[in-house]
């Protein structure tokens, strides 16, 4: 097969890894963002941690793999993106480190002060990580100030463009709704009712922000260009809209798992919409389109792409199988007895 066939395959896989990351880690990041608002007692807070406990670490591996796949398939993009967004990336890293440690450390020592300290860090790190991811993708959609040598000509503050911040806000709201539907699916009693109520309110903000992002993208970004060339792509924003509309419908019916899956479909649709709009760019230059990093000018050699394709085809299905098995095994309703028994957190 031709080299560019593999480059396209890896663009798709790249998109799949990011979408997988947002759909999966999105709900546990959302749970972190919601923690101080929804959980009123220690028992409820423990229920929140318990609801994401068996999953968050595996979910985060999607991000590591998305990073690794960028390095492997498009090393020049990896090199330019990570060095160009230096400060933002380190903020993201510190947030992820704090977050992982907070989840693990919080339950290890008895004491209200100790727990409150890690709860605060869990909340802020979840919020910061989500916001940075959103703002980063907002900037990629806009294009970045990179020159012919791939040197970043902006500063950290130039990344805080209003459109990028809007995408950041969308990420925060979408993950919060996603987290709320997941938690509502996992818990019982008053907490569940509160989560359903909060999810509906947050959903209104999510929907408004999503529409704003789609519209402003028309004016500020080249993302919709590909859709005129290949109208079939409209299926992606359509999935996003349908998914989004189904969330309140299922919440009203009390079908929280269906609401969670719909919210996941919305996140998947939005991610696919953005990726399809970017193609074939990975890291576009705002200064001159010629300087953009694309799947063609930044990819690995044909041999490496072929080997990586074989690895992905063999192992990604295996990963999906045992991930699904884990979700099936641990998606039970969390009860008082379950919490009292106290394995995990």
């Amino acid at each position: 097969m031709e080299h560019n066939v593999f480059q396209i395959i890896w663009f798709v896989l790249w998109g799949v890894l990011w979408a997988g990351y947002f759909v999966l880690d999105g709900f546990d990041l959302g749970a972190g963002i919601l923690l101080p608002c929804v959980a009123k007692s220690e028992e409820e807070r423990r229920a929140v941690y318990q609801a994401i406990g068996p999953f968050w670490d595996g979910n985060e591996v999607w991000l590591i793999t998305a990073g690794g796949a960028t390095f492997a398939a498009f090393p020049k993009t990896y090199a330019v993106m990570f060095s160009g967004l230096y400060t933002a990336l380190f903020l993201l890293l510190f947030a992820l480190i704090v977050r992982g440690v907070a989840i693990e450390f919080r339950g290890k020592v008895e004491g209200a002060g100790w727990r409150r300290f890690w709860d605060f860090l869990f909340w802020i790190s979840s919020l910061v990580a989500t916001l940075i991811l959103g703002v980063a993708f907002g900037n990629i959609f806009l294009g970045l100030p990179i020159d012919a040598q791939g040197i970043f000509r902006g500063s950290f503050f130039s990344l805080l463009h209003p459109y990028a911040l809007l995408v950041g806000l969308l990420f925060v709201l979408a993950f919060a709704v996603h987290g709320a539907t997941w938690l509502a699916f996992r818990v019982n009693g008053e907490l569940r009712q509160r989560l359903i109520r909060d999810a509906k309110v947050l959903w209104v903000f999510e929907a408004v922000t999503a529409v704003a992002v789609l519209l402003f993208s028309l004016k500020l970004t080249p993302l919709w260009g590909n859709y005129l060339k290949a109208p079939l792509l409209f299926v992606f924003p359509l999935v996003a809209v349908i998914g989004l509309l189904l969330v309140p419908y299922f919440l009203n019916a009390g079908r929280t798992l269906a609401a969670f899956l719909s919210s996941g479909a919305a996140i998947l649709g939005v991610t696919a919409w953005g990726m399809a709009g970017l193609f074939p760019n990975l890291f576009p230059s705002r200064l001159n389109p010629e300087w953009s990093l694309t799947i063609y000018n930044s990819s690995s050699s044909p041999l490496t792409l072929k080997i990586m394709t074989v690895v992905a085809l063999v192992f990604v299905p295996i990963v999906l199988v045992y991930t699904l098995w884990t979700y099936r095994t641990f998606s039970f309703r969390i009860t008082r007895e379950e919490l009292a028994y106290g394995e995990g957190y």
Partner: protein
Amino acid sequence: MDVVWASRLQFAVAAFFHFLFVPLTLGLSLLTAIYETIYVKTGDEDYKRAAKFWGRLFLINFALGVVTGITLEFQFGTNWRYYSEYVGDIFGSLLAIEATLAFFLESTFIAVWAFGWNRLSPKVHCLAIWLTAIASNISALWILIANGWMQHPVGYVLRNGRAELKSFAEVVFNKFAWLEFLHTVPAAYILSGFFVLGVSAWHLRRGKEAVFFRKSFRVAAVWTLIFSLFVFVEGHLHGTEVAHTQPTKLAAMEALWETQSGAPWTLFAIPDPAGERNVVEIKIPKLLSLLAFHSPSAEVKGLKDFPPEERPPVSFTFWSFRIMVLLGIWFVLMSLWAFKNRERPEASPGLLRALVWTIPLPYIAIEAGWMVAEVGRQPWIVYGLMKTADAVSPISPAQVTVTLLAFVVFYTVLGVIDFWLLAHYARKGPEPASA
């Protein structure tokens, strides 16, 4: 501070810190799996408690290993942009394979294990810890294949202004990488073995849960002896490979300035790089030639044969190597002593005391070993192919200095809390046996 130095220091801090946690992860996961397997086979509740007790320590340690690992992956891009561009075709794919094969498996099944005590059958639960342990070790294999390639690049061709993959098999079956794997991973097993022996000895001295800790001790004593002897022999083979493939590193490890046949082995030296000599030295004739090339008259290249800008820091490499080897000898002696007393370790209070004090020593040996490997490779980032100074990103010194300081402060705080938690739970001992 310039960008190259700050970035090197930052990478060193991140790698050093990461490797405070990884070795215990590699070995303690396997030991926990062994204890749980004994429980599943025999039904002896003490081994179930052992799996829970050592597994809890494993979990506390595991969290920091994971989060500090993400930093390392991202740093290749943030701080070493031109390295990533130049070798990403090979190096990047090895990291991506590591994530796909190992990270998913490891982080999924560690959670299954931690949360599954009451939800899974004993056999499936035991399988979860085995999968976690195997995945951790697969992860070590791929990252060491990647590091092995930086030490001794093979299977590539220079094309399109970068190193491109020519033979995947040559990269994967790189002899240097496998010797590195067989050295590093069993060294991690030694560390874990002494961790279990030391914690058990602490409790045995106090006479608490004597039956429980005697059982843990016996398994760990056999385990530690096997790997202490293995690493000792393997280390020699690894050294001869370095002699063949990285002559500047060997010369720095031995503080050898003049090329000579029948080179002596230096027991002690104070190297003087400016004067290209050693101020003081104690030597054993012909031993270096014998060790490195298996012939007492073989020629060994000295540092003066290489231009000064291609020599690694000599004193650092020389002393790190000696610390590692001396501790390696100590581990063989200690593990023999523990093995001899494995049935009744309390009978030897001296042994118990020595074992408690030995807990931190493998950490020192392992970090010293990494210094030999990484500092000894300088000034190359990929030996003979790319210099470290040419690899660094076009970023400002201020950016790197700020993140470097943040890392030092942040990692120190986290490290202190984590080791405090480890000590706390290690001292607390296992949950009481259910009646």
